[in-house]
């Protein structure tokens, strides 16, 4: 409790400065912790000062301020009541905004839940789509491989590898009958197919299912291209056995007989590396019928 004898209170006030030593002690108010100070001086010091002055001067307790005191107390009561009323008045609005916020939170949480669900569904469908994508990729690779092998077989793609080469030319002095005919070439081709050839070309023209050697005057046309002798027939296949097998086929025997009788110059050799090109583009566009969809075929007049 702050007493009248506290140095902080009455030291300087009572003019004891002159008698103070050269080094005045630090007032406790400076060194005292703030909270202690607040607690100790909780009573307004002015009450003490006024009481002290009254006892020293002997002046009577003034009653002129009584009305002011009552007024202040009335003001205090008014203040308390107004504050309470105001708080109460604001309460519904605050409650309402709180309720609005809560409902908004609820709504947003619902949205978040729904979106989580959506995320789950989308993830599922994404996984499914991905697996079907890998499936499709595998199928595509398979189809590509198949297309590749089909292209090699059917003449859509160039091929290379070991094989045999048969070169035949017109007989030098047999006149018109000594010319190589389309039938002869066709026989050789059939024999080679029978002997296991996988791809055949004549003078660089790929032989496909749509290629047929045709006589045209003294030349042979195949793939719409005119060829002249010597005719170099290259066939891809197992060249260890193909020529032997060819010689055993009826076409091979007929060819041998023909060339021997007409003295056509023939060479047959095994080649380790043959290049056979793709068929020309004009041969690669296939013509085929498509079924009429839905509608009845119209009668044509």
């Amino acid at each position: 409790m702050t007493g009248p004898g506290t140095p902080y209170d009455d030291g300087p006030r009572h003019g004891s400065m002159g008698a103070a030593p050269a080094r005045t002690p630090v007032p406790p108010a400076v060194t005292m912790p703030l909270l202690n100070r607040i607690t100790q001086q909780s009573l307004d010091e002015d009450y003490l000062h006024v009481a002290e002055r009254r006892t020293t001067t002997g002046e009577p307790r003034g009653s002129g301020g009584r009305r002011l005191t009552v007024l202040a107390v009335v003001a205090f009561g008014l203040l308390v009541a107004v504050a309470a009323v105001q708080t109460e008045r604001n309460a519904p609005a605050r409650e309402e905004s709180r309720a609005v916020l809560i409902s908004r939170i609820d709504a947003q949480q619902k949205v978040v839940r729904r979106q989580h669900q959506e995320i789950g569904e989308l993830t599922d469908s994404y996984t499914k789509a991905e697996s079907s994508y890998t499936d499709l990729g595998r199928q595509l690779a398979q189809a590509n491989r198949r297309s590749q092998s089909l292209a090699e077989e059917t003449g859509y793609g160039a091929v290379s590898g070991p094989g045999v080469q048969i070169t035949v030319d017109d007989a030098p002095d047999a006149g018109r009958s000594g010319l190589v005919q389309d039938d002869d070439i066709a026989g050789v081709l059939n024999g080679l197919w029978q002997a296991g050839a996988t791809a055949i070309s004549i003078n660089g023209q790929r032989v496909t299912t749509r290629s047929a050697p045709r006589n045209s005057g003294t030349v042979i046309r195949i793939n719409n291209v005119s060829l002249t002798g010597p005719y170099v027939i290259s066939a891809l296949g197992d060249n260890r056995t193909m020529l032997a097998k060819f010689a055993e086929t009826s076409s091979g025997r007929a060819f041998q007989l023909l060339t021997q009788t007409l003295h056509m110059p023939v060479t047959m050799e095994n080649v380790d590396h043959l290049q056979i090109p793709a068929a020309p583009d004009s041969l690669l566009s296939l013509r085929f019928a498509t079924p009429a969809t839905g509608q009845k075929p119209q009668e044509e007049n």
Partner: protein
Amino acid sequence: MIAVVGLVVGVVLGLIFRPEVPVGLEPYLPIAVVAALDAVFGALRAFLDGIFDDKVFVVSFVSNVVIAAGIVYLGDKLGVGGQLSTGVIVVLGIRIFSNVAAIRRHIFHA
């Protein structure tokens, strides 16, 4: 006794008229009430100590209310209104508690 009557009259007046507080003053009302409460408990303690003085009470009441509201107003302008009102309430609260403790000692002689 007359002070109690004044308090009751004030409360009743406030409840009857329910004056509308201007929006600008609304944030300072609670802090003013706490400051006034401090002044009132200080006065009660001084009364029990036998050193109550009307002039000191009125001056401390008015200055408490004005200074507390002023500090919070200043804090609002500086952007630290919330922190400053917390500080004011802590200090006033400590004073109120210690004054009430002194009053209790007077009443119960303990």
